[in-house]
C-alpha cells in the first residue's frame, strides 16, 4: 500500500516538472539563482528583456560559465544578447550556443552563455544583468481596427523564471505601456499579476524548480505606434579616396505588423483622424518615416519603384520621408534612399604604411524598427587589399568579391558583403571594422588606366594617319 502511494506521489511530482529527453543537452546544476528579476519592456516595436540575477556557485569547483535559458518562442529571434555587471561599465563576454534542451512535450530551451572573467569559487555569489532584444512583438488584439481606434497588442510569455537552475526568488514585470490587462487569468490568484504604476507585476515566487512551468501570461497592452518591420534591407556603402566621400544607398522592404483596417482604406477617415489628433499623438499607421543619418550628411535622395519621391525633407541629421501612401497594418512599402558623408568621419590612417581602417555603422534608420534580413555591402576602392574584417554582432555569412563601377577598368571595387538576421535599432551604432591596404600606386592607377586607353587611341590615330592606303597605278 505504502509503495502504491509512493509511486502515485512520484508520478504526480514528475508531471509537475518537465522531463528531459536523454540525448538533449542540460547544463550541470552548478548554480542556484538566489534572485531572478525579469523585466520585459514593450515600449518599442520589438521586445527588450532585462534579467537581473544574483547567483551562487553550488558546485565543488570554481565555475566561469552561466547558461541562460531562452524559451523556444524566442529561439532564432534574438537580436542582441549582452550581460554586464550592475553599477559598472563592465560587459561580460556572451554568446548564443547551438545546444538545446528538448522536453518530452516537444518544446525546447536554447541557451546563451555568459562568461565570467574570474571563476566564481564554490559557495560564492555573483550578480549580473543580462539584456536580450528579440525580433518579436505582440500581435494586434483585435486584429482589425478602424483608422481612429487605439491599437492594442497581445503578448504571451512564461510566467515563472525560465532557467536551467533552481530559483529561490523570482519576479516578473512588463513595462512600457500606459495600459495593461491580463486575460485568460489562471485560477490560482497568487499567479495573477497586479498593476503597479505603469507596469504589471507578477510574483514574487519562491523555490522554483529548473524549467518549472505554469500557465503562460497573456497580457493585452496599449501600443499606439506602427510596428515597423524591415523584412529586407540592402545597404551599400561606397568608399572613394579620390572624392574623399562615403556614399550610402539603402533599399528597404518595409511592412507594418500592426492591426489591419477593418473596413478598408478611406481617405476621408484618414484626413479626419489627422486633423483631430494633435501632432504629438502617435498613430498605429506610418504617415512619416524618420531616418536618423550620420552627422554631416549631404546629397540626399529618396526614390521608390515609381520614381523620385519629392515629399521628404532634411533637418540636421533627420531625413524625414513621407511615403506616397500611409502604411497601415499589413501594408507593405519599398523605397530607396541615399546620402553622402565625408570619408574622414569614418576612415583612419593606420601607423602601418598604406594601411587604412574603415568604421561603418551597422544601421542608419528609424529609431523603432526591427530588421529581419539585412545585406550590408561595403565597396572598397579598386586595388584595395583587405587585411582584416569584423562585425560587432554575429552574421549569417561573409563574402568577398569584386564589382565594377564607373571608371573601373581593372578588376573593380573590392566588395565585402555581410548578411545578418534579426537586427534591431539598439545595435545601430555598432561598427563594421575593415582594415585594408591601399597603396599610392593603386590610388593613381585609376587616372593612369583612363590615360592608357586615350594614349592607345591617339597612337592608333597617328599610325592610321601616316600609313598611305591610297591606290595608285605605277
Amino acid at each position, binding site marked *: 500500500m505504502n509503495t502504491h502511494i509512493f509511486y502515485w506521489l512520484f508520478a504526480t511530482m514528475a508531471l509537475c516538472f518537465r522531463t528531459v529527453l536523454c540525448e538533449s543537452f542540460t547544463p550541470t546544476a552548478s548554480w542556484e539563482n538566489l534572485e531572478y528579476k525579469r523585466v520585459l519592456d514593450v515600449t518599442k516595436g520589438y521586445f527588450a528583456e532585462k534579467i537581473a540575477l544574483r547567483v551562487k556557485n553550488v558546485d565543488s569547483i570554481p565555475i566561469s560559465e552561466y547558461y541562460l535559458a531562452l524559451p523556444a518562442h524566442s529561439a532564432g529571434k534574438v537580436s542582441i544578447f549582452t550581460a554586464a555587471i550592475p553599477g559598472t561599465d563592465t560587459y561580460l563576454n556572451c554568446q548564443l550556443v547551438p545546444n538545446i534542451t528538448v522536453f518530452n512535450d516537444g518544446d525546447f530551451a536554447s541557451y546563451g552563455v555568459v562568461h565570467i572573467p574570474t571563476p566564481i569559487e564554490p559557495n560564492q555569489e555573483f550578480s549580473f544583468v543580462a539584456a536580450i532584444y528579440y525580433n518579436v512583438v505582440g500581435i494586434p488584439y483585435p486584429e482589425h481596427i478602424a483608422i481612429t481606434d487605439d491599437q492594442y497588442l497581445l503578448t504571451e510569455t512564461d510566467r515563472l523564471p525560465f532557467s536551467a537552475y533552481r530559483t529561490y526568488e523570482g519576479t516578473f514585470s512588463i513595462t512600457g505601456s500606459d495600459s495593461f490587462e491580463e486575460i485568460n487569468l489562471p485560477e490560482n490568484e497568487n499567479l495573477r499579476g497586479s498593476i503597479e504604476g505603469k507596469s504589471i507585476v507578477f510574483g514574487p515566487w519562491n523555490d522554483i524548480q529548473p524549467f518549472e512551468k505554469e500557465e503562460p501570461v497573456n497580457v493585452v497592452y496599449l501600443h499606439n505606434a506602427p510596428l515597423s518591420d524591415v523584412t529586407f534591407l540592402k545597404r551599400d556603402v561606397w568608399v*572613394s579616396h*579620390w572624392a574623399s566621400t562615403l556614399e550610402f544607398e539603402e533599399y528597404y522592404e518595409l511592412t507594418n505588423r500592426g492591426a489591419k483596417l477593418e473596413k478598408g482604406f478611406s481617405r476621408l477617415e484618414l484626413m479626419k483622424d489627422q486633423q483631430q489628433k494633435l501632432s504629438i499623438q502617435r498613430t498605429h499607421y506610418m504617415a512619416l518615416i524618420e531616418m536618423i543619418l550620420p552627422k554631416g550628411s549631404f546629397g540626399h535622395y529618396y526614390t521608390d519603384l515609381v520614381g523620385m519621391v519629392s515629399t521628404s525633407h532634411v533637418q540636421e541629421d533627420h531625413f524625414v520621408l513621407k511615403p506616397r501612401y500611409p502604411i497601415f497594418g499589413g501594408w507593405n512599402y519599398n523605397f530607396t534612399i541615399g546620402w553622402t558623408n565625408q570619408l574622414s568621419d569614418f576612415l583612419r590612417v593606420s601607423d602601418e604604411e598604406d594601411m587604412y581602417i574603415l568604421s561603418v555603422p551597422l544601421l542608419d534608420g528609424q529609431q523603432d524598427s526591427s530588421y529581419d534580413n539585412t545585406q550590408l555591402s561595403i565597396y572598397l576602392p579598386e586595388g584595395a587589399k583587405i587585411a582584416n574584417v569584423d562585425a560587432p554582432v554575429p552574421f549569417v555569412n561573409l563574402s568577398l568579391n569584386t564589382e565594377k563601377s564607373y*571608371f573601373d577598368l581593372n578588376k573593380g571595387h573590392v566588395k565585402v558583403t555581410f548578411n545578418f538576421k534579426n537586427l534591431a535599432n539598439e545595435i545601430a551604432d555598432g561598427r563594421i571594422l575593415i582594415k585594408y591596404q591601399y597603396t599610392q600606386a593603386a590610388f593613381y592607377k585609376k587616372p593612369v588606366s583612363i590615360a592608357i586607353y586615350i594614349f592607345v587611341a591617339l597612337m592608333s590615330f597617328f599610325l592610321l594617319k601616316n600609313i598611305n592606303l591610297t591606290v595608285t597605278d605605277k
Partner: protein
Amino acid sequence: MSYEQVFREYNTATAFTPTLPLEVQPRYAVLASIVALLCISGAFALASSKKNMVIKFLEYLILSVFGSLFFGIAAVLSSNSFGVYV
C-alpha cells in the same frame, strides 16, 4: 587581429585627409580639361603636318602622353564634381 584590437587601433589612428578636397576638384577638372584639350589638339595638328617622321613621332608621343594623363585626371575630377564619386 581581434575586433577589440582593431577598434583600439581605429580610435588611436589619425583621421583621413583627402589628396585633393572635393570643393576644389571642379576647378582643377576644368584646368586639366583645358590642358588635355590643348595637348590632344596639338597632337592632332602635328599628325597632319609634313615634318620629318621621326621628329613628328617624338613630338606626337610627348603631346599624347601629357594629353592622355591630363585627360585621365580630368575624367576623374569631373566625375567627382558631378556627384559621381569614383
